[in-house]
């Protein structure tokens, strides 16, 4: 039959491609597959994996990593857990991803429950307890933590010390503002003390957790509208707006923000250990100018650190050989070499307590003007606040952030910039945030029926 060349080409393609797929079938992966979501993490794991592969020559025990983006990783894991599509033998999971995995019945959680093993093998003594908290759901632990992520305050030592300021005298945020405010009049115009801003929920989370507030209690009930939260939000608003503003919008990972840092227009930044690693890589121009200090406390004697972010290593329930996966997981995450490498490459300190005495953390860090930055973070590590694994955490963060934004508008439109006065309004905004989250939680028939 006569057909146009275009039609024939499509028909031919159909035949050829069918043949091609038959002749080149998808090769099944031999050995163990290990999914991760970041190229950096993969780079860090390679030496450890090579060591394992060399000492385990059996092809079924060889580990291969697959770097998948955060969204596809989350999607494929979820599909694997709920719809039977392929799952890996091991996987990294980021704290922002877990929400979906914990939002159904407990027995539907796709990761293997490691609680008993962790207790039996004494890993709960070896590893910093607070590090397990984001991965513990309804009392069960579902992964090995990869980090602690304490938060310190990074500051422009060159400018601060040149002005004769002794940061060890600073104990609270009030001290901080009082002592540092004179620096806001720079030689080239106005400078700002920090880059906290309402468009960065991460900094807001850091401050809330530091003050003892947060989003959920240990029973996973929402506590968005606590007095502590209200006080923190009210304080943040006075920092980012009004006559006594001390902050400017200098986003991370952004050319604009970097410019402000480099030109000394922002003096301090809330710095978790992983962010310090990022700065060391992306902002070499700040090297030798920065130093780290504990966060100024909210009240005298209060907590001087916080926590944000995190990764865990988990083993899917459907992984064919749990023992092998578990052996590798322990090997990787409990290896002193990986701990050292992680710190050296990306500045992240290990959650394994017995490695904290390793001399690598005492090395003077030229980026932070010779301070032993690892040691400074480790000193804060035991005090890092606990977190929860609520599946509603991402939405709670958005809800509280929305409340912060509304509070800022209120302050600007009524010209109120006094913390005590704003606190009442903050409470009101947080009440609606609380209501939003409670409504969403009540809408989940799987969770509310087991409550």
């Amino acid at each position, binding site marked *: 039959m006569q057909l146009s060349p275009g039609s024939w080409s499509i028909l031919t393609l159909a035949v050829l491609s069918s043949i091609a*797929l038959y002749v080149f079938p998808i090769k099944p992966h031999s050995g163990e597959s290990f999914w991760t979501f970041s190229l950096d993490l993969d780079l860090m794991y390679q030496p450890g994996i090579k060591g394992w592969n060399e000492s385990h020559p059996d092809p079924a025990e060889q580990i291969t990593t697959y770097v998948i983006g955060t969204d596809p990783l989350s999607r494929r894991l979820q599909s694997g857990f709920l719809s039977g599509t392929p799952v890996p033998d091991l996987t990294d999971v980021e704290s922002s991803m877990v929400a979906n995995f914990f939002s159904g019945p407990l027995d539907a959680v796709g990761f293997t429950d490691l609680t008993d093993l962790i207790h039996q093998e004494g890993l709960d003594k070896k590893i910093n307890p607070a590090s397990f908290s984001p991965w513990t759901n309804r009392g069960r632990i579902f992964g090995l933590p990869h980090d602690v992520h304490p938060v310190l305050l990074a500051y422009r030592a060159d400018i601060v010390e040149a002005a004769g300021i002794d940061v060890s005298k600073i104990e609270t945020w009030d001290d901080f503002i009082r002592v540092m405010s004179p620096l806001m009049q720079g030689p080239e115009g106005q400078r700002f003390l920090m880059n906290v801003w309402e468009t960065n929920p991460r900094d807001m989370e850091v401050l809330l957790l530091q003050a003892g507030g947060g989003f959920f209690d240990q029973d996973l009930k929402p506590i968005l509208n606590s007095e502590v939260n209200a006080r923190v939000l009210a304080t943040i608003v006075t920092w980012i707006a009004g006559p006594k503003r001390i902050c400017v919008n200098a986003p991370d990972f952004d050319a604009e923000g970097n410019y402000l840092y480099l030109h000394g227009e922002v003096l301090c930044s809330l710095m978790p250990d992983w962010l310090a690693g990022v700065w060391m890589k992306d902002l070499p121009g700040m090297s030798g100018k920065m130093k780290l200090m504990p966060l100024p406390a909210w009240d005298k004697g209060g907590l001087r650190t916080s926590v944000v972010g995190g990764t865990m290593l988990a083993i899917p329930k459907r992984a064919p050989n749990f023992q092998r996966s578990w052996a590798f997981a322990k090997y990787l995450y409990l290896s002193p070499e990986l701990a050292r490498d992680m710190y050296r490459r990306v500045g992240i300190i290990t959650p394994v307590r017995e490695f904290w005495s390793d001399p690598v953390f005492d090395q003077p860090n030229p980026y932070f003007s010779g301070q032993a930055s690892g040691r400074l973070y480790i000193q804060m590590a035991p005090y890092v606040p606990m977190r929860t694994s609520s599946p509603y955490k991402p939405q709670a963060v958005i809800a509280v952030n929305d409340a912060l934004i509304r509070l800022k508008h209120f302050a600007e439109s009524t010209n109120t910039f006094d913390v005590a006065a704003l606190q009442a309004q903050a409470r009101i905004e947080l009440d609606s945030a609380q209501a939003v989250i409670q409504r969403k939680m009540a809408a989940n028939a799987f969770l509310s029926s087991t409550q």
Partner: protein
Amino acid sequence: MNDPALIRRTRERVRWGVTYAILLGFAALTLIPFVWLVCASIKRADVFFQYQFLPLGDGFLGIDWQALTLTYYRELFTGANFNFGRSILNSIFYASTTATLSTLFCAMGGYALAKFHFKGRDGIASLVLGCLIIPGSLLLAPSYQLLYHLGLLDSFAGLILPSLAPAFGIYLFRQSMINAVPSELLEAARIDGCGEWRIFFTVVLPLVRPMIGAFLLITYLGCWNNFIGPQIIIQTPEKYPLAVEIAQLKGLYSINYGMLMAGTLISVAPVMVLFLFLQKEFIAGLTSGAVKG
């Protein structure tokens, strides 16, 4: 200057001038992104944002040929975390088999509705029309569940089977055959003792060649560019079609602009080529559903 013929001619010239200016302007606006895409896929990273198109320099034609590179294409096909060659094969397979099979089945269905009288014909014809208005998004969730129960998730069958005989195709072929296939011819063939299938393939189909070409390409295009279906159904990277593969690249390599654009170009070019072969039929077939006669 008062000569009416002259005024008329000048007005004519102005009118044509404006007309062509507008058309050329829009044509330029339409084509510029394509030119930009080609340039972006071969520009070195350091000059990427300096020059919108090709980097200028001291080379031949004033272009800095040294600043061009094919590494992105190399990387896509040979890099460790990429499956681009495989994705192309997957897309070709998915698009061409669906196109072939659905054209056949829709031609069959359209033929039945157009040229036969049987019980339920009008009912089925209305059914076809009704299907046209069902939004695809309504079927996403239940189809996913159905495919799960049938064990067809993460397979090509799961992608292809549901779209084997779309109502849209039945509608187009019915329209086309009502007009193009004279019933007398069919009668004559039957009287000659031809079997129904033989009539279909040797008499009917040749008469609707343009619609066959059009629908093949329409379906091919739809499958090639389909994203949400494969995104939900296919979970093994080696089975990803191009649309899903490229979206994943954007997540991991969001700042490797050259590579993203090289991937996009590879995904866009084949359809353009096919279209150049089938453009007349394609456009005729597409509009035949709307414009009578």
